[in-house]
């Protein structure tokens, strides 16, 4: 019997293998449970491919943006609100990855590892999510953008609440066009992408804010310098072209006039290291912003390794290979408005379970000091001077608006239309809001982006001040 029982011991090896299998099985189940349960064929949550039962999505004023009615998803009655909030709310088939209905699917359906989808079964709906966005501001921004592609976003620079996010092109979720897949004209390009979170744009002159910040930090006599602008400037073996011929100008004027000659010279003097150091402190190359713990933004890029001086010059005025993410840019500009300290942007203000208890609410979190208060103040003065002296306060009456435009050349083609950008914020205590406007393939920023910013900021003013 001794031998038989010794031979039986080898069966422990089989038990170990089985245990290993069980370990793998439950590891997979537990780590992937929410992904698997959220699969579109799961009949607990979906009927014929679309999310059927989930909680409500509301805007900051409690206006319902998405809800469940009779086992199907229903959306706001106003077409403009539906169009303008499409990318924020998301669709019910998961095409818009950063949409709340996709990225917060667990919360909306009330899925938890402990109870599975049981809560959905029990209450017939999941948790309700209240967003920070204001649907009226969004609708206004959408109307201002019109048929043009681009994005508009407004953020409270003191708290980080995103009160407006609009991305175009968009479509009406209640009446989805059926030619999205077959279209060849390009009118639906990137329709499922939220350009604010996932877009990457050539910043054009808006990047001069960063170059200026780097200059203030690193060149002590920058304010007493003068620069010569003859319409173009030779750096190395090539030229940087300017938008005009500005003659002899100082730093502030160069900012107001957005003089490429001056800023290319400054960028060259700063060199790739200092410029990269400043940009990376602001999150370029290093950090994807995560909005409300779930939505991952694209990462801004500035690559100056082994770049020629001419390239550094172009990069200093926001061309070359430089790319910014609108959300990151808005966070940066908000930091200037907020005395140099950046706050983390967020979209979800609270989540309520079916019994009405608040299970989650988002608090303001700081991302640290982007600029020292004195540098922030200097930049603030420059940006204020831009609006006051260059774009005109008439666009932003009573807002003490600060800002910078950018017109980004995106192609070497002469006929190609540039992208227009505007970043700015109100210095008014009553309305601590920063804005970014990006309009693709349009005319100069002052003609396209600034009027949109003006319309949106006026709506913000009526919504948020008495």
């Amino acid at each position: 019997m001794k031998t038989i029982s010794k031979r039986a011991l080898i069966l422990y090896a089989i038990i170990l293998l089985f245990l290993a299998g069980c370990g793998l099985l439950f590891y997979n189940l537990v780590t992937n449970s929410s992904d698997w349960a959220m699969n579109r064929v799961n009949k607990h949550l979906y009927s014929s491919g679309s999310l059927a039962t989930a909680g409500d999505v509301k805007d900051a004023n409690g206006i319902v943006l998405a809800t469940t009615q009779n086992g199907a998803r229903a959306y706001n009655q106003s077409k403009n609100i539906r169009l303008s909030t499409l990318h924020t709310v998301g669709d019910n088939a998961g095409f818009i990855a950063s949409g709340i209905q996709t990225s917060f699917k667990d919360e909306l359906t009330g899925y938890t590892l402990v109870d599975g989808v049981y809560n959905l079964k029990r209450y017939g709906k999941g948790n309700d999510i209240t967003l920070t966005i204001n649907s009226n501001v969004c609708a206004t921004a959408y109307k201002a953008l019109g048929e043009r592609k681009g994005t508009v976003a407004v953020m409270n620079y003191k708290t980080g609440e995103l009160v407006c996010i609009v991305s175009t092109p968009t479509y009406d979720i209640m009446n989805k066009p059926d030619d999205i897949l077959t279209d060849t004209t390009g009118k639906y390009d990137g329709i499922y992408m939220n350009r604010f979170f996932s877009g990457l744009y050539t910043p054009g002159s808006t990047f001069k804010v960063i170059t200026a910040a780097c200059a203030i930090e690193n060149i002590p006599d920058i304010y007493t310098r003068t620069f010569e602008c003859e319409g173009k400037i030779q750096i190395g073996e090539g030229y940087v072209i300017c938008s005009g011929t500005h003659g002899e100008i100082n730093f502030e004027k160069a900012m107001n006039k957005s003089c490429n000659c001056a800023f290319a010279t400054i960028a060259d003097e700063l060199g790739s290291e200092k410029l990269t150091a400043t940009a990376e402190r602001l999150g370029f190359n290093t950090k994807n912003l995560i909005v409300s713990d779930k939505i991952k933004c694209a990462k801004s890029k500035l690559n100056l390794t082994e770049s020629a001086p001419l390239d550094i010059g172009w990069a200093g005025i926001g061309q070359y290979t430089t790319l910014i993410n609108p959300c990151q840019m808005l966070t940066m500009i908000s930091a200037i408005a907020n005395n140099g300290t950046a706050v983390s942007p967020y979209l979800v203000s609270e989540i309520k379970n079916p019994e009405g208890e608040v299970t989650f609410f988002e608090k303001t979190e700081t991302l640290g000091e982007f600029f020292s208060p004195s540098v922030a103040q200097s930049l603030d003065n420059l940006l204020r001077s831009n609006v006051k002296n260059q774009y005109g306060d008439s666009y932003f009456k009573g807002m003490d608006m600060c800002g910078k435009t950018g017109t980004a050349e995106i192609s070497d083609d002469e006929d190609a239309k540039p992208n227009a950008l505007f970043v700015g914020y109100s210095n008014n205590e009553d309305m601590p809001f920063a804005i970014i406007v990006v309009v693709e393939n349009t005319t100069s920023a002052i003609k396209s982006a600034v009027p949109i910013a003006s319309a949106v900021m006026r709506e913000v003013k009526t919504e948020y001040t008495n």
Partner: protein
Amino acid sequence: MEVLEYVLRYILCFLAIAVILNCVWSLIRLRPDKKVYAVLVDMSNNKQYPITCYEASVGRSKICDIIFTNSTVSRSHAVIALRKDGFYVFDTESKSGVYVNEEKIEKSEKLNDGDVIAFGTAIMKFHIGNDGNNDYSHKKEKKQKEQKQPKLVNLVDGTEFTIDGDFVTIGRAKGSNIELPAPYVSRKQAEVFKEKNKWYIENMGSITKTTLNGETVNRVIPLIDGDVIRIGDFAFLFEM
């Protein structure tokens, strides 16, 4: 109804887990104790070879349960097996054969206590049980009986009380197994009882304390050999 269903899910899970974990825990720990069923005694040097399993292989090989190093013993020579009706020896194609009481066996032979078995030149006396001549099963029974009869020794006068059944009542009441004629003893003062092969004491008195090794008995306490039970002036030694 909804709430009921919600809660029942947890209860259902808890019930199943309770059963499965209890059984699994018991299954992976249960193991029979080792017993000596029979003994082979070498007639030449009185060396004892205990048989501790139902089927024991006998031979020269190391894999055998009982190993004889004599060269006349085959590598696997024989098997001694305890079957339903007693012990058998099987010759498993050995070269030199198996002899029981000097007779060569064909295939198998029933064994009786005291038989002499020869595996080649290894000559063994076969004893059922773990050493002596007693029948295995009989001895086992006797042993169990001995174990089961603890005593209570009165430490005052030295009298012994052997516990007959499964419990003993101690008290002032007439008809108690041990009567304690003192007014401060309750009518039912204490009870010594057996459960699952273990002995316990439980206090039932209200006026006087029952103590076990100096400590008050206020719940059921297991008893072991040598414990001293005191009730007032009375004292008993518990002997297993």
